[in-house]
């Protein structure tokens, strides 16, 4: 009896240990928690360094995506002169123009426009879409990809629809 129960115990122990090892795989917690953990860790470490007040922590200056950053640089070079740095239609050359440049922070107007329409307007200029010819056609200067970058930046100027 004693020997049998010993065998049983050994078997049970092997089974349990195998079960245990098989359960320690990552599937036990949802992988999204892993992401949360990593992000949380990064936040904590900056907090720690903050409290020391000695060495500035790693700071992430830009929160725009790559496309938006590319778009921002192109926008600043080509568009901001008339449409304004923040897209309010108040660039320094806007003063000379009538009709005035479009205000990109006007969410009601901007959200009604499709990306395709924006790309076409930049590509062909005002004259291509029945608007003022003061908006030049940029299709010869910027390639399709660059125009799409600009659109992705212009999209973050107005508050998107909920």
């Amino acid at each position: 009896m004693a020997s049998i129960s010993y065998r049983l115990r050994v078997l049970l122990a092997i089974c349990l240990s195998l079960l245990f090892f098989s359960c320690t795989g990552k599937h036990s917690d949802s992988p999204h928690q892993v992401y949360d953990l990593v992000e949380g860790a990064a936040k904590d470490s900056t907090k720690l360094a903050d409290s020391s007040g000695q060495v500035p922590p790693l700071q992430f200056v830009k929160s725009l995506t790559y496309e938006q950053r590319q778009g921002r640089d192109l926008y600043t070079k080509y568009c901001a002169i008339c449409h304004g740095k923040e897209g309010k239609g108040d660039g320094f050359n806007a003063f000379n123009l009538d009709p005035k440049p479009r205000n990109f922070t006007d969410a009601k107007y901007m959200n009604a426009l499709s990306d395709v329409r924006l790309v076409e307007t930049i590509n062909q200029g005002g004259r291509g879409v029945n608007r003022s010819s003061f908006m030049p056609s940029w299709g010869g200067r910027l390639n399709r990809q660059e125009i799409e970058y600009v659109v992705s930046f212009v999209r973050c100027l107005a508050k998107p629809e909920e």
Partner: protein
Amino acid sequence: MNKLRIYFAASSVVFLVVLAISPLKDFFREWKWYQYKYNDIIKELPQRVKPADIGIKQIWVRKLDNIDRCVTCHLGLKEKALREAKEPFRTHPHIYHDFEEFGCTVCHEGQGSATTYKESVGMVKYWDKPIFPKEYMEASCAKCHKQKQVPQAPVLTLGRKLIEESNCISCHKLEGYRKQWVPSLDGIGAKVNRTWLVKWLKNPKDYFSKTRMPNFLLTDEEANILSDFLMTFKSFSNDVVLEPLPKLLSTSSVYDPVGESERAKLIELGSTRFREARCISCHLINGKGGYVATELAKVASKVGAQWLYTYIKNPKRLQPGVEMPRYRFNESELAGVVAYMQSELVDYEMEELPQHSPDPAYYEKGLALFKKYNCSGCHAIGGMKKAEEMGPELTFVGSKMLYEIDFGKSNIEQTLPSYLFAKLKTPRAFSSAMKMPNYEFTDEEAQAITVALLGNTSEAIPEQFKIYPKPASTFAPQGEFGKLVDDLACFGCHTMFGRGRLVATDLTLEASQAQRNWIEGYFKIPYSLRPILTERMPNLFVSDSEIKVMGDYMERVFIADSLEREINVDEAKIAKGKFFYYGKFGCQACHQINLKGGYVGPALDKVGARLKQGWIFSWLKNPQAFKPESIEPNNNLTDEEAEALTAYLMTLK
């Protein structure tokens, strides 16, 4: 017997369970969870997206000998419908490289062959290259793109520009950067006063907010000793001596009514010339003006009148290599400008330092400080040899291992980017023995430099992928024109055949562009073609014979015959051109004619008397072919349209 059966049954069950473990474990793989989740998500999308086959996926980059399994979970990289999806399914931003050709880890780092999140991100023991934070991604561009300007990587480009401007290479070994011109310190004792020098050494940005000189964080005692040491250097290089001041300028303490009124007239003249010479195109005055050269607002409290007089007369004699034009002032104009600067550009708040007796061993101690902080790394002085690079070599800084870095007692995140960032922001925070000065970089600047430094890796990239910068232009005009270009420091603002700065226009095709009469008139009375620019062409007061030399040279060298073009002009064509100008292309949005129109591009009044028609035509057809930086839109004009516009513009005389 019965018991044995029970044991047999139990052990079979156990056996089956054990057998089931392996397939179960396989079933519960992390990446499978993501693939099922992906297939669930795409069902809810309005568009139809191809579901993922369950299984490991990988990109094998033969050329780089690299296998990346990231695409096992990152399933939506090419699906535009997943732009707004959460990671790991989000669409990859559209970049200029196809990731199927180059793989993932060549840019993102991390462990490509891993199939769990933690391992692939590289946050495990013995994996030295964890995944790059998003903000430092552009460092990877630097592995192959070795040029100064990488338009698709603006952060990297800014970082490289800052490294060059900050003259990092005078202390650190780093390939691919040019040393910047820095004033020589020969004769500094005869140039500045000690009060200013002490203040400057303590905090250079106090005097000149945009100076490239960093703050060496000297103590009061160190600043005193170093200034005493520097004040002993009273002789200039090449045996130049300061010129005696003209009588008009020497002020006497006795009140002299005749002299006073003459002096007032002199200052008046100087003030006019100071404005005409457009000093503020390059110099800053109280925060306004260009930032190519030093701040002038308080310059009379910095340098002596005699030095100023000798310097303006011929800048290159006192500071060899300086990019300041030699203005052709006559004696009284020169005296006037100096008198004006002496009366206006004074620091009224500067307090004289109390009398002090120098430390008896100030020379030895000063020399030691001078060597300690490697001042001769940037500044030339008394024939002293440039000290060897004293900072750590940065050639492969991006491949530094964590165990090679001394984080000191700081508790920042223990990664290479965070170390570099912190080092740039507070250079001496990690140990008190560090000597690196503080450049007062903003967060954005420090981040950009970190990116540029991280890109200096020892990773072996096949040569075929690397893109090297074009060799620097060696254009050096000879003869009379060459002397004038040197004397007037044209390269300080203009570019010719790829050499020089782009503050002002590129002169490479100037004679094809502008008419000779206009060029000659422009030297006489320069004006700004674009009303909004702050940097404007100064009046250099060049003589007629000098103008002829420059005009002749330009007509021979700065010209391309292919740009000549005959255009048959008739009334109908001009009318059409006018319609194109005002109607179809809306040129007046940016250009002015008779003060009407925008002020982005140059005003087009009298453009017919300024430009050549062949140039206007070619320019309109493709502006960026001549000036790649120009923001003029390329309207893809037909020959007919461009000819009509040219015909109209040529009538504006």
